[in-house]
């Protein structure tokens, strides 16, 4: 049983203008009480309410910086919400940035194990899945090579194969699928559909509205950290496209 529930979740980032500070700077500032490196507040999410259950496939869309990826990371439990409540039941597997969670010096096989262990597998349970992961990724002998020499597409193949083979109850995917080649994209969509059949919860962030419409059944349109519209995926995509067209400069 998988369930996601966000209740009025807000997330505010406090970012320093000049990156991290030094201890020296900190002490000096305490003494002089004058900040030369102030915080900038970014309201990444504001009052987001969301509910999803088994078998639902959510597609999140919106312009760059609308809070789509942040929302996904809050769902994954990586960012703690500043306000509001996050309830997630079920085993989560996530695919964010491509190289994330890979150890560059280790080869493909080793990385399958590390990623598996990170998500709670044991040596015994992962052994049974390694072959399936290797087959699905179709990487063959490349798996003997350190991951740092992989192309982006190869990494996506490996990451997606691991993330889905672990049989998560909740799968969170951010934008990465576009990097794989055509054959793999088709394969990935097929696997997503398979996962649906076994009643899993999937949340996908993408700018590729066509594949979003194929994979998802519910759409969420994010705008400046707020949910602008929720509904059947085709309706939300239609509304979003009209909105974007209306705001485009005439020349385009």
């Amino acid at each position, binding site marked *: 049983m998988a369930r996601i529930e966000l209740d009025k979740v807000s997330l505010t980032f406090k970012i320093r203008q000049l990156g991290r500070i030094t201890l020296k700077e*900190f002490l000096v500032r305490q003494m002089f009480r004058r900040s030369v490196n102030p915080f900038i507040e970014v309201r990444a999410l504001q009052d987001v309410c969301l509910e999803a259950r088994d078998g639902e496939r959510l597609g999140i869309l919106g312009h760059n910086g609308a809070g789509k990826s942040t929302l996904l990371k809050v769902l994954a439990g990586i960012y703690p919400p500043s306000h509001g409540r996050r309830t997630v039941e079920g085993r989560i597997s996530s695919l964010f940035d491509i190289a994330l969670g890979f*150890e560059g010096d280790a080869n493909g096989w080793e990385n399958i194990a590390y990623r598996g*262990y990170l998500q709670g597998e044991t040596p015994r349970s992962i052994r049974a899945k390694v072959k399936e992961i290797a087959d699905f990724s179709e990487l063959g002998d490349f798996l003997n090579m350190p991951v740092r020499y992989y192309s982006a597409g190869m990494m996506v193949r490996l990451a997606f194969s691991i993330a889905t083979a672990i049989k998560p109850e909740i799968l969170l995917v951010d934008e990465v699928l576009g990097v794989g080649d055509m054959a793999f994209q088709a394969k990935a969509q097929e696997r997503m559909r398979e996962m649906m059949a076994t009643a899993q919860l999937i949340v996908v962030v993408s700018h590729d509205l066509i594949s979003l419409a194929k994979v998802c059944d519910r759409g969420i349109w994010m705008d400046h950290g707020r949910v602008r519209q929720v509904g059947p995926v085709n309706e939300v995509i239609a509304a979003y496209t009209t909105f974007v067209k209306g705001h485009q400069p005439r020349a385009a």
Partner: protein
Amino acid sequence: MSGYVAAIWQCRYFWLSLVKMDLRTRYRRSILGLGWSLLQPIAMTTILCIAFGTILHVDIPHYAPFLFAGLATWNYIQTTALSGCQCFFQGESYIRQHPTPLAVYPLRTALGGTIHFLIALGVTLLLAWCCQGLDQGDSGQKLPAQAEERAAVSGPEIDLAERQPDLAILRNGGQVTSHAHSSRWTWLGLLSLIPTVILLFIFAWSLAILAGFANVHFQDTQHLAEVGFQILFYASGIIYDIDTLKNEAIRQLMNFNPLVSIIGLVREPIVAGHVPTANMYAVACTTILIAASAAVLTLWRLQRRLIFHL
């Protein structure tokens, strides 16, 4: 708290495989393999023994294990603290991918350091055993002879001490271990190394946690820590025994340095052959308890928000 420990245990395969990988990548790159990590203390011990042996006529069979035990423990503490500064950045790609108890990343650093330390400890024991054999072989006739010799030499030695107090410390450093002349290893002493390793491991883990968080918040932590450790090195009696310091005030001051006691826990059973004193245990345990509490408190207060500072 117990839930947190359980969560760390639950992803044990994850951090264990990272430790294994760290060790492998470190050793795969050199033919010397394991020996590489021991090169620094071995080279330093050799150089100091040659230097002090020829210049100051330090009693090498006693000075060498004394020095090596000190260096091994010191390196353990220093490297776990300094590489602990990087632990969260090293694990950043995992932290951004999947929520895990953050203590596993300093744990990775501390475990790697512990393995190196255990190897170094083995070498220390071997070295001490060889030196002991060397010493035992000729101790029969040499002991009284040495005493006489010392009595005869005492005149110029005092002279030297007056002129060059720093050197006198080192000179005595070699001799301080001389109370070990009569004492061979005891079983109880050697057994005391087991709880000592556990204590040191808790200390190293705590230091790595504190260093990791500090470095994420203040980017100059590692640099400051390097400077601090350099000063501490000379204040912790690694290359000399602080008990031989002539100046009473400085000696008392040095005894406040908890690292002296912590290093003593390792040194005492190997060099002097007996269980560390109750005083050493008291100081070392208190220090480690304080470090561990600070680490737990830091984790509890800052762990959730660490991601925003990476």
